[in-house]
């Protein structure tokens, strides 16, 4: 395989690895559950997508077989990652997980737990 192609694959692979690392680092570092939820669902999905793309290109370059089946994992993860995030946010609301002190509009969680619309004062503030 040519040098430029190998360089491109290597860079893409390293970028994917770094995104996954940032996602896991965010999981360890951020202050409360709701902010932690953001890091893995986004960074890890894109990092894995980039590594899957690399895997496809390497299979094509080294063996000449066009392996498109990696797309299936990417598609599956893009569909399922938001579902897991949504379910976990629901669980956290029902358990009244502790929130970061600076969080704005914490009163919305109380109505969200009951699946009710926001109380009139805050909704009028947001709708106006």
């Amino acid at each position: 395989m040519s040098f430029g192609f190998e360089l491109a694959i290597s860079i893409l692979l390293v970028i994917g690895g770094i995104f996954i690392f940032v996602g896991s680092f965010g999981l360890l570092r951020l202050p409360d559950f709701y902010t932690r939820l953001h890091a893995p669902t986004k960074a890890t999905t894109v990092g894995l997508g980039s590594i899957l793309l690399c895997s496809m290109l390497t299979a094509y370059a080294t063996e000449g077989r066009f392996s498109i089946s990696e797309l299936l994992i990417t598609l599956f993860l893009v569909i399922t990652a938001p579902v897991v995030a949504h379910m976990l946010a629901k669980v956290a609301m029902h358990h009244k997980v502790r929130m970061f002190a600076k969080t704005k509009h914490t009163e919305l969680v109380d109505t969200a737990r009951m699946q009710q619309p926001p109380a009139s004062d805050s909704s009028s503030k947001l709708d106006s």
Partner: protein
Amino acid sequence: MTRIFPQPFHTLLLTAVWLLLNNSMSLGHILLGLILGIVIPIVCQPLRIPQPKIAKPFKLIPYVLVVLKDVIIANIEVAILVLGPVKRIQPGFIAYPLTLKDDLPITLLASTITMTPGTCSCELTEDKQFLYIHVLDMPADEQSLIDYIKVHYEGRVKEIFGC
């Protein structure tokens, strides 16, 4: 026709997934995939919950491209926030007033919101009027965020489903 193909889109999707799974385009796999794609929707027909039809399937392509671009930008933004000082993070909740009514469009919108810049959909109210969203980096002006979602995502989803 509708008895053999209750859901033509699902038939195509199942065949494509079967071919991807086996990573081959041979005639045998195409035939087997088509048989599975025809039989599975017929067997699953009684389980189906009626959903609105996709009115303009070609509008999905620009939507996917816009979301893909936003996902990449979102990741760089989230990475900067995660690696930067914790003091700079300003999380918050907002209630987003929905104008969509059906389940499938709301699911598509909620998934898109979760995948894009610093927002994560948390809970839907019982009457499907509000979507609670957790925002990682709350801007000073909350209305601008609601307007951004309304114009960029909800408007396009509405166009796709034609409602």
